[in-house]
């Protein structure tokens, strides 16, 4: 007897570990797809990834760097679909390539922020006592500053550039994750299934990594997705102020910044990258909301 892939995935008596894990993922996937807002967000993010990968193809041979001063600040036309900027560069091509820069920032910030936040939060929450107090006061110090101002200070101290912008954003973004992870850990640490592994003789690190972190992960992922819009905007803000991506990198924030002097006469220079930032931020927010619904343990059963 043959079974379809969907039946195999939804089988409530899986025959292997792989089938159980894949089945769980599949159910999560179906829950996301069943939620229209989350689906819209997911599609936007997938489109962003596709645009970043296929930028050279989609740009149809236009270069994001080629200058043509004779054509500077040209209005949208058949040749330059979305017009040109102050150096005569094609805004359509620059916006497409800008997706790569944005994705790079988003990816790098996530892989820095989530582990730091999880490590600090779970250690503080699980060990308690003076470890908790020291780690949380350090977190408070970072939280006490307005985020953009602190990122500005770090970016200014480290020097302009995308890598430094990523470091500056990460340094200011991790404290809320530590807080979330700590709160989740305190709830989880008191539960019977953690006591069970303690009684089995597991080491503290094993308990944290194998039993506590997997349960904190969902709220951290939701928070990270919802934060992505803020991270993109902070990166754009740093770019706008000249501390993020440096010319001629086609970063959306820097592009908006370059267009602000001519915003009344040549509106497209600032508007097009602005719309790109808006759509991507919206996509991450919608997906984050959807993930929160899917991961919500109260809605699970």
């Amino acid at each position, binding site marked *: 007897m043959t079974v379809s892939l969907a039946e195999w995935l939804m089988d*409530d*008596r*899986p*025959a*292997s*570990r792989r*089938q*159980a894990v894949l089945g*769980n993922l599949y159910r999560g996937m179906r829950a996301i797809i069943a939620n229209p807002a989350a689906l819209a967000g997911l599609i936007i993010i997938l489109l962003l990834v596709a645009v970043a990968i296929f930028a050279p193809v989609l740009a149809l041979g236009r270069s994001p760097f080629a200058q043509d001063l004779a054509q500077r600040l040209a209005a949208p036309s058949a040749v330059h679909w979305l017009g040109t900027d102050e150096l005569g560069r094609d805004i359509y091509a620059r916006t497409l390539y800008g997706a790569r820069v944005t994705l790079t920032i988003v990816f790098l910030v996530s892989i820095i922020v989530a582990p730091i936040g999880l490590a600090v939060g779970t250690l503080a929450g699980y060990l308690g006592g003076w470890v908790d107090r020291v780690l949380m006061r350090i977190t408070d110090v970072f939280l006490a500053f307005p985020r953009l101002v602190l990122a500005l200070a770090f970016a200014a101290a480290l020097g302009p550039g995308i890598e430094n912008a990523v470091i500056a954003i990460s340094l200011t973004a991790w404290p809320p994750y530590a807080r979330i992870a700590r709160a989740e850990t305190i709830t989880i640490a008191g*539960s*019977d*299934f953690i*006591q*069970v*592994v*303690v*009684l*089995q*003789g*597991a080491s503290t690190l*094993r308990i944290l990594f*194998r*039993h506590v972190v*997997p*349960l904190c992960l969902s709220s951290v992922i939701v928070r990270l997705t919802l934060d992505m819009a803020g991270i993109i905007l902070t990166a754009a803000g740093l770019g706008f102020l000249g501390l993020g991506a440096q010319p001629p990198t086609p970063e959306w924030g820097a592009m908006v910044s370059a267009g602000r002097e001519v915003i009344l006469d040549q509106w497209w220079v600032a508007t097009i990258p602005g719309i790109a930032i808006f759509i991507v931020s919206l996509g991450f927010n919608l997906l984050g909301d959807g993930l929160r619904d899917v991961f919500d*343990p109260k809605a*699970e*059963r």
Partner: protein
Amino acid sequence: MIDIADLSVTFGSGNRVVHAVRGVSLSVEEGESFGIVGESGSGKSTVLKAIAGLVPNSNTHLTVQGRPASGKRTKADRRLMQFVFQDPYASLHPRQTVDEALREPLAIHGLDDPENRIAQALSEVGLGVEHRFRYPHQLSGGQRQRVAIARALILRPPVLLLDEPTSALDVSVQAEILNLISRLKQANRLTIILVSHDLGVVAHLCNRIAIMQFGKLVEVVSAADLRSGNVTSDYTRALIEASRGFVRAVD
């Protein structure tokens, strides 16, 4: 097998200190089924948790198989006894399959041949291969408690501590689980300490029973004496009377 001398447990500090257990001394023989009964708040679960090492501030002289086990416990100490919690809905990790839950203790203690050990542990508690890769939310309460018992026994501990193992379950499932425990005790020659508020459960499973009230040990009686009402303290008599009254009301 297990000796406790003058166990006291307090929670909180200063004015708000609560004496959960006051000066309890017990000794449990090897292969014995020992029951602890009492009403809610009598400290019976706390005594069990102190034996397991889950209650931090217990100043006591606890020896297991003649070895002191009061301080920090090693992995070898942990392997001497395993615990089955009251609520099977809370004692299984929600994101781990049955297979992972049973694999974990084997990995911690570095035991060989996990595949066979897991399969055997499942069949011992009456679960089939079809349950092995399920998540807890795909199991019933009784099945979950079976998993919890399999997980406790997979390390082959000589002592099994049970904290009201049936009180979160349906009446129809309770009997199944009690029979399972009784059968596993015979097969593995386990020493059992069972905590319950249900005199019937304790009298069914245990040889000797300790009665607790207000954190103190009232008396220790044999199961036969408990059934025949041959007890010395008024409180025990009242407890027996209360449970008989309940039975009569049901009839």
